[in-house]
């Protein structure tokens, strides 16, 4: 070892952990809030876990939202909606339930609690928070039926 190489390597050094950039939808609060919002846009503030799973997939990206609404409106086939298993989904679900924002009513039906409804109202009243997501949920609300869920999951896990 000579010259510069030696100078560089022959010096004390340490490893320092640098915080990493992270997509916001991988943060617990974002995802739990998104679940609350999804449920609040469902009939009677309740939805099946399967519906939540599908909407969870869609709401994370603009492309996902676009694809799901096109499918629900019958513009693309279920083959084009590639729903992936998302390991973050179950963690976020657990967090939300422990937080007391929604609860499992049995039969895999989730429903917003009083606190959840309150949180949903707070989010809804903020005009510049979750703008695209709210628009998306509002737009798909009348189209999203049980038969769509079955069709999507059949394709996804066949």
């Amino acid at each position, binding site marked *: 070892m000579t010259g510069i190489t030696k100078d560089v390597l022959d010096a004390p050094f340490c490893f320092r*952990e640098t*915080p*990493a*950039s*992270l*997509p*916001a*939808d*991988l*943060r*617990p*609060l*974002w*995802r*739990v*809030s998104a679940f609350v919002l999804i449920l609040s846009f469902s009939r009677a503030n309740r939805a099946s876990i399967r519906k939540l799973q599908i909407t969870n997939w869609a709401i994370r990206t*603009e492309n996902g939202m676009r694809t799901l609404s096109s499918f629900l409106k019958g513009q693309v086939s279920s083959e084009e909606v590639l729903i992936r298993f998302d*390991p*973050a989904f179950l*963690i*976020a679900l*657990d*967090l939300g339930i*422990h*937080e*007391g*924002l929604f609860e499992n009513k049995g039969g895999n039906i989730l429903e917003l609690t009083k*606190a959840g409804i*309150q*949180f949903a109202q*707070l*989010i809804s009243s*903020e005009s*510049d*928070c*979750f*703008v*695209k997501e709210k628009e998306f949920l509002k737009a798909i609300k009348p189209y999203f039926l049980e038969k769509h869920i079955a069709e999507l999951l059949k394709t996804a896990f066949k």
Partner: protein
Amino acid sequence: MGILLRQLDLRVTTDSGEFGASIPFSKGLNVFWADNSMGKSTSVQGIIFALGLERMLSPQGVIPLPYVMTQYVEENGAKNHAVLNSDVYLELENNKGEVITIRRTVVGQRDAKLVTVWRGSVLRDGDSSYEGEDFFVRDPGAASRKAGFHRFLAEFMGWELPIVKRSNGDDVLLYLECIFPLLIVEQKRGWGGIQANMPTYFGIRDVNKRAIEFLADLDASGVAHLIQELKFEEERIRQRWVDSLEIAGVYIEGLGGKIVNIPDYPTTDWPTLVRPTIELSVGGKRVLIDSYILELKSEIEKFDTAGIPTAGEAAPANQDELDQQFAQLRSLESTFQEVERELQIERHLNNKLLVRLEALDEDIRKNRDHLKLQNLGSKLGISVADKNCPACHRKLTDILLPDCEVDTPMSVEDNIKFIESQKDAFVAMLANSEKLIEEKALTSSALRRDIVDTKSTIRSLRATLVSDSRVPSVSAIRKQLSKEQLVETLEKANARIDELVETFTGLSRELSQVIAKKNKIRNNSGLTIEDESKLSSLEANYVAQLKEYRLRSVQPTTITISRESYRPIREGFNLGFDLSASDNIRSIWAYLVAFLEISRNHTTHHPGLVIFDEPRQQETSDFSFTGFLKRASNSIDHNQQVILATSEKFVELQRALTGIPHSLHKIDGRVIKRIV
């Protein structure tokens, strides 16, 4: 400038006879007393309705009167008498001594949008010999048109309503509904804060400020309007500048050139030392238009003096040139292909940059949402929002993935900064790429033109080589003609630039004037010496009252009147949040009375009238109005009027009124009674 209320009459005709109330007012302090929920507020609402100001209370202008004026009258505890017809009458006097009586129907055959005015005292003197005149309220034009009641009322009060700007840039009159929240405090929402009843749906810019400026007759109001005007003027100049540049730019681009040394946006520094000119792309090289014209002209001249050679004379030279032209064509074509390929790659990169930027924007948006969620979540005590696990109450790693390489994610704030710095880099790259594309496109179109030129030169050279050797050389003539044509076109383009320079000279001069005007305004901060003296009187008066009323939430001496918003501030923040409910009432009372009192020593537009409807008891249990009465009673010495409707314990009220000039109107039982 001024107005006094003389009498309010409420009249209700039911299926079982006439009901009503007459409330007389005099100069100075008027206390109107009735027990709780006996109709005390009906009187204040009646005044608001008679003056056509109900849109102060709701945008739809719902009739602000209770059921007793609209549905049924209770007598002996039963809702037994249906209302058939009801009217509000109000008698007013202005400072010239002119008296008018207003009648407005609440329920009945007559349209509630009509207001009848008699020019005389119908209520107090009972004189009915005057002829009534109808005006309209609430429809568009009520403040501006001759038959509009608010125009009439403003004139009667000696007001000339100022013109203000709406947020869309339109001019409108400052409506009476916007001024009266500084004169009337209504019970339901009026105590929410200073100017709490201000209607915002008219879309008037800075309406709170405009109203205060008008009422206190601050010169700043004219200044504010001027500033708006200047802003619009500046925008107009900018638009014309950009448009002219764009039109000229498109024309010059058609010639394969671009304008250089020209600012994209208006500047006062015009004409610049370096004159704008056109840069052309000739044979892949950049040349300035003037030197190119000179070059072309000297070539043309050389040719003219030499005369046109015959085909035979030109043949040897033509053969050489043909070879040269072929070589040039090949090289031009390969350069062209290369440039086109580069252009394609650059466009592709540009697209990718755009996609990437969109994704970054989306990322920023989501992270900002996250920040807001943290705020909202913390308010509700959601532990995830504070990065705590709701199940085990330990610190939560801020990431949803199990077993991932990221141990410590950035904080959301840092993450936003991080993405923004990335975005900055991409924006710079995008700008660079766009510049490259523009240049390459220019080169490409110049090359294409050169190729076409070379090809036709080749054609004419060939034609010359095979033609009769005695005729004039075709290629020489063609070359000469095309050069002459080009010079003509380029000179036209130069003339275009001259025109542009001229236009910009005009615009630049206009801009200088606008900026000079703006600077002049800015230098005296919009407030004249007189304005400043009014505002400091207002401040001193307001703070003195707060001390007198024993404001407790904050130290009164720390409060000032903002020279920006003209509202009370403390340490730069609006007063309001710091105040307890009862101190808030003290502050509103003091602020409105301060305007009344400063109008005694300053010229203002204050009509010398303030009306308070005491807030509902449960909202201010620890509060008593009696402390204020002494101060308000001074109004009698200045021909002013303060009206307070209250349900204060009567014994206490009487004690407070002892020894101070006032008129008390006490009503036992319900305000609206059967008229016998």
